[in-house]
C-alpha cells in the first residue's frame, strides 16, 4: 500500500529529525544554524501537511500541534522549531478563513473595544472540508520557506544604513547573521570590528577568522576586556538565539556583559535577529530557559582529583533584558524592543501560544 509506505517514510523522517535535535548542540551550540533548523522544520511540516491523513483544517492543526509538541520537547532551547510550528498553524488558520470567504484580516484588527466585547476566544471549529485547502496551505508554506531563505540577505541589505565609515564595532561570539551583515557593509565601507572571544567555547575566534578573510580589520579580545574596550566602540552589533516576547534576548553567554557595558557607555546595541527567532516565550519560564552543557570546556575532565571536590557548570545562554537593547534589525526592517509585542501578534495567533 503506497499510503502506508508514505506514512512510514514520514514518521521515519520525523524520528530522525527529533533524534538530530536531541543530539544537536554538543558543546558549542547548534551544529547547524538556527536558520537551517527553521527551514528544515518548515520543510518537514510541509511534508506532514502533504502526506498525513486529514480531512479538515482542525485535523491538520491537531496533527501539527502533536508533532510540534514532540519537536519542541526534544530540544527546548531550540525555540526556532516551536516558532515555525506556530507560523504554520497561523498559515492554516488564515487559509481556512480565506476558503470560508471571510477575511481573517478584519478579525485581526484588534482594538480595545473588540477585546472587551469579544469575550472568549473565537469559537471556530475548523471542521468544514475544503478541496483546495491542502494545496493552498502548501503554497503558503512554500512562501514561508522562500521568506526564510531570504532572511539573512534581507538583514544584510540594511547594513549600510547602520554602519558608517571608520566606525569601531563590537560583536560577541559568532552569529551567521551578524557575519553576513558586517561583510555586506565591508563591501562599501571601511570599519574596525572588535570581537569578544566568548569563552569557554570561543566561537569569537572563528568569527574573527571569517571576518578577516573578508578583509575587515578585526581584533579579538578576551571577555574580560569588554568593558575596557567599550569606550572606543561606536556600535555594538550582536546576534541572538531567541528574541523573547518581552523584547529581551536569550543569547550566547557574555552578551549580557556586553549589553551592560554598552549601556554604561551609552553605546547603541543593535541586535540582528531574523523574524523566525521571535518566540512567544517569556523569560520567567525558568526551566526551559537555560541550557547547561558538559562542563568539559570549563574544567577539563583530565583535571583529575579536583573534579570530585568542585561543582562545575557550563551554561550556554544569557538573558538580556529589553531595556538594554536599542534596536532590532529583522528581515522586515528595524524595530524597537517595545514593538516586539506587535510583531508577535502579527506572526502568531494568540490561541496557539501554548502548543
Amino acid at each position: 500500500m503506497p499510503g502506508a509506505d508514505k506514512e512510514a517514510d514520514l514518521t521515519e523522517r520525523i524520528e530522525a529529525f527529533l533524534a538530530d535535535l536531541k543530539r544537536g548542540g554538543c558543546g558549542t551550540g547548534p551544529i547547524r544554524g538556527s536558520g537551517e533548523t527553521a527551514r528544515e522544520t518548515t520543510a518537514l511540516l510541509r511534508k506532514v501537511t502533504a502526506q498525513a491523513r486529514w480531512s479538515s483544517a482542525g485535523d491538520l492543526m491537531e496533527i501539527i500541534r502533536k508533532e510540534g509538541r514532540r519537536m519542541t520537547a526534544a530540544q527546548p532551547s531550540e525555540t526556532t522549531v516551536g516558532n515555525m510550528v506556530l507560523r504554520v498553524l497561523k498559515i492554516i488558520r488564515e487559509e481556512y478563513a480565506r476558503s470560508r470567504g471571510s477575511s481573517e484580516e478584519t478579525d485581526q484588527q484588534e482594538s480595545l473595544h473588540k477585546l472587551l466585547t469579544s469575550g472568549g476566544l473565537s469559537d471556530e471549529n475548523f471542521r468544514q472540508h475544503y478541496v483546495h485547502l491542502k494545496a493552498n496551505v502548501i503554497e503558503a508554506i512554500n512562501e514561508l520557506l522562500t521568506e526564510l531563505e531570504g532572511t539573512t540577505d534581507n538583514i544584510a541589505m540594511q547594513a549600510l544604513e547602520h554602519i558608517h565609515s571608520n566606525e569601531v564595532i563590537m560583536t560577541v561570539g559568532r552569529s551567521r547573521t551578524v557575519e553576513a551583515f558586517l561583510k555586506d557593509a565591508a563591501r562599501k565601507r571601511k570599519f574596525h570590528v572588535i570581537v569578544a572571544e566568548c569563552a569557554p567555547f570561543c566561537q569569537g575566534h572563528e568569527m574573527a577568522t571569517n571576518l578577516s578573510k573578508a578583509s575587515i580589520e578585526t581584533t579579538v579580545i578576551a571577555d574580560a576586556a569588554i568593558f575596557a574596550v567599550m569606550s572606543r566602540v561606536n556600535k555594538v552589533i550582536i546576534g541572538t538565539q531567541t528574541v523573547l516576547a518581552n523584547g529581551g534576548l536569550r543569547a550566547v553567554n557574555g552578551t549580557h556583559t556586553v549589553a551592560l557595558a554598552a549601556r554604561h557607555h551609552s553605546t547603541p546595541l543593535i541586535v540582528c535577529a531574523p523574524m523566525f527567532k521571535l518566540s512567544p516565550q517569556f523569560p520567567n519560564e525558568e526551566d526551559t530557559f537555560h541550557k547547561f552543557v558538559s562542563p568539559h570546556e570549563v574544567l577539563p575532565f583530565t583535571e583529575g582529583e579536583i573534579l570530585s571536590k568542585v561543582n562545575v557548570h557550563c551554561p550556554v545562554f544569557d538573558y538580556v533584558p529589553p531595556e538594554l537593547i536599542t534596536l532590532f534589525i529583522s528581515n522586515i526592517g528595524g524595530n524597537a524592543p517595545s514593538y516586539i509585542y506587535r510583531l508577535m501578534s502579527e506572526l502568531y495567533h494568540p490561541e496557539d501560544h501554548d502548543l
Partner: protein
Amino acid sequence: MSSRGGKQKKGNVTSEQEEEEQPLQAVLVADSFNRRFFPISKDQPRALLPLGNVAMIDYTLEFLTSTGVQETFVFCCWMSNKIKDHLLKSKWCRPTSPNVVHIITSDLYRSLGDVLRDVDAKNLVRNDFILVYGDVVSNIDVSQALQEHRHRRKVDKNISVMTMVFKESSPGHKSRCEEDDVIVAMDSKSKRVLHYQKTQGLKKLQFPMNIFQHGSDEFEIRHDLLDCHISICSPQVAELFTDNFDYQTRNDFVRGILVNEEILGNQIHLYVTQDGYGARVSNLQMYDSVSSDMVRRWVYPLTPEANFTDQQGQGCTHSRHNVYRGAEVSLGHGSQMEENVLIGRDTSIGANCHISNSVIGNNCTIGDNVVLDRAHMWNNVHISSNVEIHQSVVCDGAVVKEAVRLNKQCYFSMLPVSQVVIGPNLSLPEGTVVSMHHPEEEEEDDDDEFLSDDQEVGHSKDKTRQKAFNPAEVGPEGKGYIWKASMNDTEDEELAQCLWGLVLNPDPESDSESEASEESQDRSRSVSPEIDDVNAFQLEVLGTLQRGLEENIVCDNLVLEINSLKYAYNITLKEVMQILTRVVLEYPFQQQGTQLTTLQYTGSLLPLLKTWSPVFKNYIKRAQDHLDCLSAVEELFLEQDTHQTAMVKVLMKMYQLEILEEEAILKWFSTGATNDKSRQLRKNQGLQKFIQWLKEAEDESSEEGE
C-alpha cells in the same frame, strides 16, 4: 593462519567502495560475566540496572546510535528474557529506529570470547564493528577513530585488527576504575600499541626491550588513560577469537596479539580522545561516579532531562545546581535539594529533608527529616522519617523504617516480590549488603549465574521462607539477610572491595612514598601463596631421591625428574637448589630419626653426597648458585645446632667433590654473616680451621701458578 585466509577472501569479495557503503555494525555484550553486582544482579541483569533512572543498556544503545551505528547485535546470557523484554518495549525496536537491534541469546556464553566466537560462527559481521559492553556510558564521537581505523586498514592491508578508544584522564580521577588501570606503550606517530599491561596490584612494571628497538623513534608510555571499553574491531577479531579458543577477555586478546605480533602480523592501535565522556560501570564505585558524572552533565547530551529513551512520563526538568525533578514530584515544607539531585516521577518527599548528590527513582516515598547524601535509590523505595543514608544503593522496593542510619557503601538487593525491610532504630555499618537472598543459598547453587533463572528463583524462595530473619541484623521489623557484616574481617574486606572496586587512595603522594618500604613486604606476600607449592615440591624431591637410592637410578634421570617437578610446581631455580640442598642434608634425619649423633649423621650423609654430586653439579654452576647453596647449608645447620660440628665435614666433602668452589666458600664466610647466630656459627673452631686451610691451599695454588 586461517585468519589470513579469511582476510584475503574478504578482500576479494567486497571492493573497498562497497565497504564504505555497508552499514556500521556493533556488537553489544549485555552481560558482565562476573559477579560484581551480586546479589543485585541475581534479580536483575546488570545491563538493566538503572543509572539516573534509565537502564544502562539504553545509554550504550544511544551512544551507538548517535555514532551512526545502523545494526546492533545484542548478546545476552544471564536473564536474557528480561533484557529482551526491555529492548522490545524500548524505542530501539520501533520500526522507525535508525539502529536495527538484533537480540541474540544463549545460556552458553561465559565470556566475551564465547560471544565473539559465536559472532564468527554465525558470520554476523561483514565489516569493521564497534564492540562495547552493555554498561558503557559514553558520548564520545568515535567517527574520527573509525576513520583512522579504516584508513589504517586500507593503507596497511588489514594489519590493524583493533582500535581501542581511551579517554585521557589523569591518575587519581574518581572515574578511573582501578581495576582497569593500564599502562600502555605506544608508537607516537602510528598510535600502535607496543605494550599493554594492567597495573592493578603491580608495584613494578616491566617493558620488554624489543618494543623500543623497532618501529619509529618516538614512543609514549602512558598511564593517564581511562579505558572506555569501546573498541573498533575488524572482522578478523572474531576469527582470531575462534582460532585462539583460550581467549576469554579483551585483555587476553590484546596481550595475545601483542605477543604473537611477529608471527601473525596483526597490530592493535589506540585512539586517545580528550573530548567526550566514556566509562564502563564495572563495579559499584564506578556506578557511583558515573552516576554523579551523568547528573553533573558530563555526558551531555545524555542528560536526565533529555529523555533520550523517549518514554512517556520520563521527562524531567533541570534547574539550578543540577537539580532534576520528574513529573508530579512533591517536596515537603523546609526540605532542601541542595545540589546534583535527580528525582524520578511521582516521588514524594516529606518535610525538612536534606538531599544532596543523590538519585531517587520513580514512585518513592520519603518521610520527614531524612538526610540523603550520595544515595542511589531505585524505584518504589519507601523511606520512613529520621533516616540517614550515606553513599548507599537502595534497590527496588526496599523499605527503610524509622531512625535507620546507613553508613557508607551499604547496599540492599531484593527480589521484586518480597522486599527487604530495614529497621526501625538501627545503624548499619559500612559495607553492609542486605538481600532477600540468603547468602548460604548462594553457596549452594554456586556459580550458576549462567543458568536459566526462572526455576531457580522459584525454588530459592521456598528456602527463604524456612530461614528466619535475624532481628539483630536487620531490625525488629526487618526482612532480609545480611551478606557481609563489616569491613573488619579480611575476607569481607575483599568482598566489599570486589563490590565497590578498589577505593581510590585519597593521597597518592604518600602512597608513592610508602611504595619503597612496601616493596619488601610485597615480595614476602607474593611468596606466601606459593608456600604450599614449595612444600609439595620439597616432598616430591625427597621422594625422588629416595627412589633414586633404592632403585639405583642414574643421576641424569634424577635431574630430569627434578626439572619436570620444578615446572610442575612453578619453582624458581634458586629455590630448587635450596630445597635440594636441604633435602639431602636432612636425608639422614628422615631415614633414621632425629636422635642421630653427629658422627652417625656425617657417616650416613657423606656417601650420599658422593652419590648425588652430579645432581648438585647440575644445579650449582654460577657463583651466585654457590652462595645460595651455602646459605641453604648454613640455614639448616643453624636449625640443627647440635650438629654444627658436622658442617665442616659436609663443606669439606662438598669441596672435595667439587660441588663448591673455594672462592665461594671464602666469600660466604666473610660476607654471609647477617645475624648473631650465623656469626656464632662462623666462630666454630672446626670451621675456622677449615677456612684457614682453604686460604692456605689457595695461596699455595696461586704460588704454584706463579
